[in-house]
């Protein structure tokens, strides 16, 4: 069962989770994805919600549907790389805005990061 | 679907049915044992067997016979009570959730219950008659010992005379009467059950105290049936004034017809309750 937050729409969280699995290479480019039903059972969510998440991923092009073999991860490695980068930027921005809340200037935050490594 | 309902209804009552038949057989055997007491021999020979042992045997024998009558009465009444309770339990308690959500018609449910229950009552009834006949024969054999041939020699002419008297003096067509009697006997269990099931179903119309309402319904139905029967009998009593023999038979037929009509009405009541007014607690 996937741990999902209780206050945000479930399909949004499913999209995020699947994006991470794709950009991190858990699902390789061109790899066939499990069926909606299997993934829904694994995540313990409604199949319709999983379907909705897939529709979103198809919209962004990360997942492509082939009538013969079901759904697979796109083979467009540029798209995957770009998505990965976009998600990384988002995470970084989250980090810096969080640090800003705590009163850290950018340089201080950077120094802290270096120190923690 | 009716066949399947009958199959499962049969499966769910046959064990208790067999138990009751077994009890009847056992009771009959006890009765037979009772007639093996020397007491019965004395009736024929006039010779008294003295001694404490014989005395105790006689008391036990007598008690056993009383038990026999009580147990047999319990067998038929017990079967009836069991079937009515079974009907109530499977139709109107939690178990009813199963039968009322099956994709079957309400007629099929009712017919399966009345049919299977009636057949078992018939079985028990026939077993009681057989038991009584068997025990009568045992009693006669005990009393007359080896002189049964003599008994038959006397019995047959008496029966002949009785039949003659019925036919000539009371103007009775015995063949018709016998046939009618058989039909009534066969129909009686089904009629009785249909009426009782109807009373149980009527009880369901009440918001609460549904078992109590079922009992009150049954009392009400019995009173109504007696009343209607009496009124019709009264009419015939006037019409057939002076012809006691004929009146007696007509009166019995009226009783049967009232039962039959009541069963018809109450079948419809049960059907109406479970198909249009069902309110499971």
């Amino acid at each position, binding site marked *: 069962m996937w741990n999902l937050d209780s206050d945000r729409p479930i399909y949004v969280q499913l999209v995020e989770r699947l994006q991470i699995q794709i950009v991190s290479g858990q699902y390789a480019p061109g790899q066939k994805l499990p069926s909606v039903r299997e993934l829904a059972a694994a*995540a313990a969510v409604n199949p319709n919600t999983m379907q909705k998440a897939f529709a979103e991923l198809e919209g962004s092009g990360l997942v492509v549907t082939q009538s013969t073999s079901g759904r697979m991860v796109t083979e467009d490695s540029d798209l995957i790389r770009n998505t990965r980068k976009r998600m990384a930027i988002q995470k970084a921005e989250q980090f810096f805005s969080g640090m800003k809340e705590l009163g850290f200037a950018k340089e201080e935050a950077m120094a802290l990061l270096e120190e923690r490594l | 679907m009716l066949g399947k309902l009958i199959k499962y209804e049969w499966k769910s009552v046959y064990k208790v049915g067999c138990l009751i038949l077994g009890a009847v057989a056992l009771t009959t055997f006890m009765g037979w044992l009772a007639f093996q007491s020397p007491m019965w021999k004395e009736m024929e020979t006039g010779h008294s067997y003295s001694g404490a042992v014989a005395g105790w045997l006689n008391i036990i024998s007598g008690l056993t016979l009383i038990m026999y009558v009580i147990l047999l009465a319990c067998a038929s009444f017990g079967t009836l009570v069991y079937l009515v309770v079974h009907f109530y339990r499977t139709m109107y308690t939690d178990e*009813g*959730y199963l039968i009322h959500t099956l994709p079957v018609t309400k007629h099929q449910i009712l017919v399966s219950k009345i049919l299977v229950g009636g057949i078992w009552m018939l079985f028990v009834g026939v077993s009681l008659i057989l038991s009584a006949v068997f025990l009568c024969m045992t009693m006669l054999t005990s009393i007359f010992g080896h002189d049964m041939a003599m008994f038959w020699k006397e019995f047959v002419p008496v029966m002949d005379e009785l039949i003659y008297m019925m036919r000539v003096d009371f103007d009775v067509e015995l063949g018709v009467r016998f046939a009618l009697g058989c039909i009534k006997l066969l129909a009686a269990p089904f009629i009785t059950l249909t009426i009782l099931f109807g009373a149980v179903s009527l009880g369901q119309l009440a918001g609460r105290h549904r078992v109590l309402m079922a009992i009150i319904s049954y009392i009400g139905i019995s009173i109504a049936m007696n009343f209607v029967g009496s009124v019709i009998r009264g009419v015939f009593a006037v019409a057939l004034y002076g012809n006691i023999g004929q009146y007696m038979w007509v009166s019995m037929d009226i009783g049967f017809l009232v039962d039959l009509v009541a069963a018809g009405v109450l079948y419809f009541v049960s059907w109406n309750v479970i198909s249009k007014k069902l309110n499971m607690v």
Partner: protein
Amino acid sequence: MNELVEIAGLTKAYDAQHVAVNNITLTLPRGKIIGLLGPNGSGKTTLIKMLNGLLTPTQGTIRINGQAVGVETKARVAYLPDRTYLAGAKKVSEILNYFCDFYADFSRERAMGMLQSLGIDPGARMNALSKGTKEKVQLMLVMSRDADLYVLDEPIAGVDPAARDYIMRTIINNYNPQASVLISTHLIGDIEQVLDEVIFMRYGCLLLYTSVDNIRAQHGKSVDAYFREVFAC
């Protein structure tokens, strides 16, 4: 194809003071898992019993697959009551035969598979089983059917968390775009993730019928939290 369930003006009054279900109008689509939520005594079970022909409505109509509740609808609705309704003397395998005989859409293989994964002996008699196991048997019978509508009245109230997960998985695995599942419960948090839509009932009235994602998007909280807010005492 027509809607799966159409309820119009449905009312059940036990007497003048006790109106258990009050003028509900509702249409349930196919292919959804729908939560029927409300505090105790809000009329959930009464509504469910009317869907299954165990209670006669005082007013209003119910149509399932376009048909009034009757033989045809009962063949297409799989119902899990909120109580033990199987005779105690019966063996699990006998009950299996019973369902096999009466419901054309019952799959014996699926039932046997579920018994095996739940670790229930088909030869056991019902009255020898624990309360939770009895509930599992009843749920197994319901989910072994290929019905159009599954109506589950409090399916998870009496079972342990592991069985609860199994039940959720079973419902998900059994998902069929032609069929819907209606689940009544007050343990919302446990099943929230599998629900498409929720129906809130209060005092026998329909309070709300919307999708789970709608509630989360609009109110920024889980259905469970939103429910607590709406029904706060």
